[in-house]
């Protein structure tokens, strides 16, 4: 792997880029690997990377049915945050933020983690009380949090609607300064490049057609490019977790929904932070390129359709205009949808699948991007050791039997 740096950019500029090597190889599929990871999105690639880095396991294949990073990694709103209520969630997501904080240098790939802060607004006296509950929870969990009043929010984000006719007037909110946005494709590419450099085979355009189970144990997968045997298999196939479960014969508490996102034409900087207004269910940031990046809630109809539909567009974009009326004249450039795994408590599932030798990383719902580093970190730990890392233990499938759900919305009123 040729190292990226200001110097290498300068040098390659002089010689017209002749020295840039492949970001990753196009390897030939081998017959057997120590670990096979199904799904070449952020989580799958991060898993491969951390297997090589933390566990020195390098005989690894990542199997991707399309192009790497082409699922939800490449179609989200790029928010990264750890403003969680439950200690289990806070520990998980804050680990992810910490990994993100060093990720560009760790991977030698600029993922542009921009810690511009995230504001979750409160729009009434009761919401301010909930904001205080949330803010205190974060502080106790060791996550940075500040409770702001309306003036402080206006100072941070002057384009927000503080007019008298605003449907839900802003009373204040919670700020997490360490939250922000990242460059989503770069996260996938950075992990892919680093994993590839460590010897991982990333196989694109290879679809898993069946999971091989012998004597109750998963021993490999059949793919469109042939059979692969594996010491152990990890599944990180957000959006299609149930399809894989059906193949392998385990059950999941997951429903697939479309989550839409929207981006405007680029404009000069007008927004500073990532801002969420819960009663509108809409959050907004501005990309480094200048586009307004707008996200909202799930579509109303369970779907594998990977495209958006008008009712939610209407809800999210009218809410955006209510939040930022001066920006209603800006034009929408693109919108898209990703298929997300929705669990009953909106928390992820990390752990054994119920089929021996097959481990899961799924159920991230609307918030998988921010968890890519920790999702990979924890699945790698499971694959390498067969045991839970302390951070992932509360997130196993068994929580649905014990009733120990980790439902963020339940305590804070704010969904994942």
């Amino acid at each position, binding site marked *: 792997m040729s190292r990226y740096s200001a110097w290498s950019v300068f040098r390659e500029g*002089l010689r017209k880029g002749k020295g840039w090597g492949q970001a990753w190889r196009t390897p030939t599929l081998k017959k057997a690997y120590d670990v096979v990871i199904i799904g070449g999105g952020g989580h799958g690639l991060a898993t491969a990377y951390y297997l090589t880095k933390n566990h020195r396991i390098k005989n690894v294949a990542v199997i991707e049915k399309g192009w790497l990073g082409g699922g939800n990694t490449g179609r989200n709103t790029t928010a990264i945050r750890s403003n969680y209520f439950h200690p289990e969630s806070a520990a998980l997501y804050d680990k992810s933020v910490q990994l993100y904080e060093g990720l560009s240098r760790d991977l030698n790939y600029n993922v542009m983690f921009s810690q511009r802060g995230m504001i979750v607004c409160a729009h009434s006296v009761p919401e301010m009380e909930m904001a205080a*509950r949330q803010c205190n929870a974060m502080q106790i969990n060791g996550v940075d949090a500040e409770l702001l009043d309306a003036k402080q929010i206006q100072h941070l984000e002057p384009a927000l609607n503080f007019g008298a006719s605003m449907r839900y007037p802003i009373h204040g909110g919670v700020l997490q300064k360490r939250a922000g946005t990242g460059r989503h494709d770069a996260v996938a590419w950075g992990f892919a490049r680093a994993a590839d450099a460590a010897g991982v085979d990333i196989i694109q355009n290879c679809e898993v057609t069946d999971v091989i189970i012998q004597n109750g144990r998963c021993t490999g997968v059949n793919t469109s490019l042939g059979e692969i045997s594996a010491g152990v298999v990890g599944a990180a196939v957000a959006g299609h977790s149930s399809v894989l479960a059906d193949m392998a014969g385990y059950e999941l508490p997951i429903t697939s929904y479309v989550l839409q996102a929207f981006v405007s034409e680029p404009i000069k900087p007008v927004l500073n932070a990532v801002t969420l207004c819960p009663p509108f269910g809409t959050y907004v940031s501005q990309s480094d390129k200048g586009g307004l990046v707008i996200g909202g809630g799930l579509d109303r109809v369970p779907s594998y359709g990977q495209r958006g539909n008008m009712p939610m567009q209407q809800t999210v974009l009218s809410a955006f205009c209510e939040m930022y009326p001066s920006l209603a004249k800006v034009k929408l450039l693109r919108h898209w949808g990703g298929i997300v795994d929705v669990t009953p408590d909106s928390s992820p599932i990390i752990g054994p699948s119920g089929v021996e030798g097959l481990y899961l990383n799924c159920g991230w719902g609307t918030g998988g991007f921010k968890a890519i580093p920790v999702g990979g970190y924890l699945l790698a730990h499971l694959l390498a050791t067969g045991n839970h890392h302390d951070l992932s233990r509360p997130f196993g499938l068994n929580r649905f039997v014990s009733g120990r759900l980790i439902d963020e919305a339940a305590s804070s009123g704010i969904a994942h």
Partner: protein
Amino acid sequence: MSMRRIDNFGLVDRAKPLSFSFDGRRYRGFDGDTVASALIASDVRILGRSFKYHRPRGLWSAWSDDPNAIMDISQNGRVLPNCQASTTYLEDAMSARAVNAWPSAARDIKGGLDLFHRWLGAGFYYKTFMWPDWHLFEPAIRKMAGLGSVSQDVLSDYCADQTFDHCDVLVVGGGAAGLTAARAASEDGQNVCLVDDQRLPGGGVYQMQSVDGQDPSDWVADQCKAIRTAGGRILNQTTAYGVYDHGLIGLMQTHRFGVAPGLIRMRADRVVLATGALDRPITFPENDRPGIMSLAGSAELLARYGVLVGQNLAVVANHSLAETSIALLTRAGAEITRIDPKVRPFKAYKGARATGLKQGGHARLFDAVLTSGGMTPVIHLWRHMGGKLDWCETRQAFLPAETPAKMIAIGAANGTFEIDVALEEARCAGIGHASLRADTRYHITALWPEPASKGRQWIDFQHDVTLKDIEIAAQENYVSVEHLKRYTTLGMASDQGKTSNMAGLAAMAALQGQSIPEVGTTTFRPPFVPVPLELYRGPHREQNWHPLKRLPLENTHRAMGAALGEYGGWLRPGWYGDGDPKTQIAAEVRAARTSVGLFDASPLGKIDVMGPDAADFLNFIYYNTINTMTVGSIRYGFMLTEAGVIYDDGVVTRMAHNHFVVSCSSSHVDGVRMHLEAWRQDGHDPDNIYIHDTTQHWATATITGPKARHVLNSLGLDIDLDGAVFAHMSLRETQWQGTHVRIARVSFSGDTSFEVSIRASRAASLWDALVRAGAPFGLCAIGIEAMSIMRAEKGYIIIGKDTDGETMPHDLGFAGPRIKKTSAFLGDRSLHTDKANDKARRQLVGLISENGLLPTGAHIVHAGQSRGYVTSSYDSPTLNGPIALALIANGHARMGEAVEIWHLGETQTAEICAPCFFDIKGEQLHA
């Protein structure tokens, strides 16, 4: 003057001159011009700058595929960012500024960035800016990026009209094919809607000498007349920008500058796609220079706006359709020099106010170089609809493959470039028949980017993606089209790849040794053109975004000086009077505690559940036992989810043996009704249960306090109000002034209370009567804030405030049914999971503190961990001190313990107590 208006060409109204400015200089144009056509007519060559290198940009084309001339435009104080000059119709006194350029597009101070281009190639930013930290570089990069500037003014009356519409046949595109199809369909008796995005339909027909033997303008007028005569509609300036599930088509109808466009959600039984084709650029060194533009675009400038881009023109083209454009330009007096693009090397260079071309050692200057690399059918909507594409080797283009349901492509959009064939195809499509694609007379020499050739060759003009960038992307293995797009930003500019995608794909195909169809296309995503976000807002704004529910007594409350606010989706009196709210609220509590308060409880849910199975049904729905209730009795209970969590609380009244009224929280009425309906129909016999929500039919006035009975007595009702006879938790029905009233003796305040319900239309009379009757007793109207304090004093909970999404009834001290109830009920099994049995569950308790009011939202902490939180906290006017309710882990067993309270970094202590601070023995409640 090298660029000028030509007499007898164009559709602009030369009797209506308009004045405007661009980058501070004044120009003139005509009504019917676009900003771009007027600037070209005024001999302005540089209309913009590219995104990254700030290279000068001229106009590329005359309609929505132009990626170059993007402007912030203002008129009469209204400023719109990022307007496409080629699709913005000129209006008087417009002032336009090129985006991303200062002080002007012609003299942009950042033009020098181009000198550093070799270091700013594809994806350079992924490889650097990592040390010491991205945050050091990001602010400067953000400032450099972005196109237009957005003023922070809110445009007044900028509100999109939104309508639903339907037709039998929607024809998209009003060119020759579209007009013909629309005419055939409407004359066939179908309800036809033709949409065209220009002011005048006709598409490219004005470039032709004649259509069907007629002058093009006359022909268009005839078709329009025939369509309208047959009952069809023609919507001008209307763009079909997206197709959504179940064939819904989004139409954007644009109006004058500064007026919000309208959204039409169109449903059509059939869609005829007549969207034409776009001219694509030719990739050669320095092909981005101002003065190099689309041949078809230059023909359109002449045909529609009477603007000839120059006298001395070079034409670089590789296909037969170029001849039509050349003929048109020649008729207008241009001298055409044909350049064969196959003879390489050839490159452009900069001449003073001219564009130079060098080929085979010869260098020549032209007023403009018109290029045409072939026609690309506009099949965006086809792809939105799920239609497939086939690669056509003859036409060197992707064409619609087998027809998806309900959509037919015709004319140039279908690769039918010959007018006679297109018209026949259109007539068939109009009456519902897709034609077999005929052999074409169109011929084209394949001409695609040649990797490894010399010079800087632009693929994406706006985003400065060059052939070299694509070569680097391929070298670095970003070879999937989506990786290519994302890594280089190819096709992600405001034209969304209309000019660049084909060349980019072809370049990658060549680099990979693959054919173009093997490389494939990227996804075509809506919208086809950028649409203002306002389009989706329309009337969904301000209070209409989610309208409040209103009380029948709203006017009465206003007259009494109520401070109205939103509570659970209702507009309700928070308190009365305009003094200091805290003081007012405290006074209301004291009045209600010492004499009597009057409270509007109308939003409380009132859902009738009737029928022979009603009792057993509610016994299943409720945590508490319901089927043993006697007629006329009232019971407090919880509805749980199947996960055992409290969903709602409230009282149930048994009105008759087979008739109950479920009184749920005011914000939960719709949800509870659906919850009841779902279980009624799925799991019970729906023929034996009937559910009817009557919440809005009734108004409810609550009289509460020691003098409540006296006030009610003064109404002269014929019921015995004596506490021994009319006990707490029971109901009476009677008449008041000829109107049926229900009187429920229930209490949310903790004092003796009566809820008097009457039909909504009589609410004001009842309220006034109570106010009059109460006057001698010192009656005081109280708002929801006072009621919230009083219920907290008594330890009554508010769902969602004093409970959370994990709270089960035994956490609130209601453990009985969990252990004793033998019949099945919702959520029963979930009350016995590991988590439900956990000793550390958060339980409802009271807190007393010697340090004043505890902040609501503060946490109870132990050993650095949260053990619960303060859910309600007030300065109690009744107790003259602070009270608080809290959910605390294992709280019930910890009465009297001191706990540490954390709030925003500060800590204090408080003591756990029972969650009841008032009338602990219930004497006043039952009095």
